[in-house]
């Protein structure tokens, strides 16, 4: 056990699975770096943020494939490789680039099992960076997990910490269905204790990072840390919160969410993706439908405005949910009283 960053946790998960299973390969733009030029440099970058650094050196060019800048071709190739027996981990770099290869994901990989009567397996993982707060502007900052969650046949993982990232990525690689694995680009340097040995965290099993009696907070990815901070501050004010990290948006652990809302009667959902048809609306609908009688206050969503992610730092910070915004939402539902009918 040692402290590892989010980046190291993901690198270690890839490395251990590649050692364990020769069918695991990685492919993507710049996953090794240095290819195609005349310098002769190999493994220079390990991806734009250094996540795959060192894998080319250990596993060689047959298993670490630096691809041309053509998402449609290499995501399609990865889907085909998965259908024919390999276990590719393809890196889309920024999730915002999914538009270039959506057919390969949505209409091909996600549909194979169904269209072939359950006889096809597609053990494909697509890793990508998501999220605002990196000053990467509107075309490189979106949190597009709702888009994938919308498509039956995909599993969607949004890890909230280095420990979670390693266990969930190993699970994703061993899974026989296409998995979209989304990494918040602001979190790569966050550190915590991560076991050195391989381990798996099952999909569809939410994690309660705080347990309290007054308000349930459901948060995704990077927002889990924000929700924990808000819960710790609110505890001192006498408001105790349960914080739920669903870990995967598809499958979604609706049972845990409903159980917790049944206990607290109050719900705040924190989602950094665009507010229309996102996970916050999805969870709000679930609870309104299945746990209406338990609710003691309206459901509150802490979400960004329905705009592109701004580039200006001040605006970008305003755009994102924050610990303060979560606290305010929790206070408002905790203080809410149903008006007596006259």
């Amino acid at each position, binding site marked *: *056990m040692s402290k590892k960053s989010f980046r190291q946790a993901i690198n270690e998960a890839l490395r251990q699975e590649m050692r364990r299973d020769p069918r695991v390969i990685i492919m993507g733009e710049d996953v090794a770096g240095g290819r195609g030029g005349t310098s002769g440099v190999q493994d220079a970058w390990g991806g734009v943020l250094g996540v795959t650094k060192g894998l080319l050196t250990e596993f060689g060019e047959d298993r670490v494939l630096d691809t041309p800048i053509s998402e449609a071709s290499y995501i399609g190739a990865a889907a085909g490789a998965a259908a024919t027996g390999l276990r590719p981990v393809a890196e889309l770099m920024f999730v915002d680039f999914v538009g270039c290869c959506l057919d390969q994901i949505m209409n091909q990989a996600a549909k194979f099992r169904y269209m072939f009567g359950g006889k096809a397996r597609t053990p494909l993982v697509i890793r990508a960076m998501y999220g605002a707060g990196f000053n990467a502007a509107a075309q490189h900052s979106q949190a597009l997990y709702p888009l994938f969650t919308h498509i039956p046949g995909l599993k969607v993982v949004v890890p909230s910490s280095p*420990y979670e990232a390693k*266990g969930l990525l190993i699970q994703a690689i061993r899974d026989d269905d296409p998995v979209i694995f989304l990494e918040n680009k602001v979190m790569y340097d966050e550190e915590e204790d991560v*076991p*050195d*040995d*391989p*381990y*798996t*965290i*099952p999909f569809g*099993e939410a994690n*309660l990072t705080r*347990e309290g009696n007054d308000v349930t907070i459901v948060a995704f990815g990077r927002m889990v840390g924000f929700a924990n901070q808000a819960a710790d501050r609110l505890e001192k004010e006498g408001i105790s919160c349960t914080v739920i990290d669903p870990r995967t948006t598809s499958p979604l652990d609706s049972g845990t969410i409903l159980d917790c809302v049944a206990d607290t009667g109050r719900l705040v959902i924190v989602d950094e993706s665009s507010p229309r048809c996102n996970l916050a609306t999805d969870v709000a609908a679930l609870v309104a439908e299945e746990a209406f009688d338990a609710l003691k206050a309206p459901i509150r969503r802490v979400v960004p405005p329905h705009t592109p992610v701004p580039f200006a730092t001040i605006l970008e910070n305003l755009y994102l949910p924050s610990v303060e915004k979560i606290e305010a939402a929790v206070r408002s539902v905790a203080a809410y009283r149903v008006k007596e009918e006259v």
Partner: protein
Amino acid sequence: MSETITPITMPKFGLAMTEGKLASWSTPVGATVKAGDEIADIETSKITNGYESPAAGVLRRQVAPEGEMLPVGALIGILADADVPDSDIDAFISRFNESFISDDSGSAGNDEPTRKVTEVENLKISVQESGSQHDGIPLLLIHGFGGDLTNWMMTQPALTETRRVIAFDLPGHGESSKDVGDGSPVSFATTVAALAEVLDLQRVHVAGHSLGGAIALELAKTHPDLVASLTLIAPAGLGQDISMTFINGFIEADRRKTLEPVLQQLVHDKSLITRQMIESIIRYKRLDGVIPALKTIAETNFHDGRQAFPLRSVLETYSGPVQVLWGEQDEILSVAGSEDLPDAVTVIRYPDTGHMPQLEKSPDVNKAIKNFLDSGNS
């Protein structure tokens, strides 16, 4: 003047502790205490435990209010004689707090345990040693089924004051390799003997808990020259019963909600099972190879819901000193296992205590081990 003032500081329970919460004071301000009297309950992320006064005196101040979270080493109270003026105490507190620097690295003393991974017969064995500066026969701690070396978090630091103490993770557990062979006490004892050889231990006192007790007995049987004495804490091997609700529940439960009632069977005071403790066991069980390892051990040792390896006869043949410590409310292995033992065996039973006296009654257990090892037997 300040010699008569003793600061009481946040203790460090185990290697991982960096901060603790003063859960409650058990001694009121103005009360006279002896060294060793319990003065407060300290809650860490892993466990809540009584804190014993380091010296005699009057508890003059409770500097930390109940419920406050403080780093290890922070001032929580003041002991002094009744005639020390309040102004001296105030001055002492402000001096202490001015100079106090929280040390998260835990490098406070040379008794700090060091943790490393050792290669033993092609297995990685994770070992935590402390007190290596002490001569004399070291103490080797063997944990039980599903445990790891942190089961000794209250034991190892206390006994390290006068002795080299070695705790380790058995194969299949903690950070050691997950290959357990056939999972029998014989196979574990072979690994322990090999570990002793790697660590160059010619003679060790052995304390074993639960399944670790059976392993200790097996070790005493096969390597009597290695084992200087035996401390058996709620050991397997002396009775036949075993709670299969616990064993099966431990293997099967994979969520906090289902694991919590299983782990609560380990202790009499159910509040000792903290969120953090449950989480660390869930994390352990997620490691590759752990569930097959636990199933192998359970199948080999507790086939048909009974203990498969009777080791009582070892107590007739082993010539070294033996003591048996057991909680009277043990729900995993009945305290009846401590009955009808040979006269030479010292038996201590703890009231209101479950299967883990080394956590639940740690001051008593530490004293029992210390006295046992110091009483001419070492």
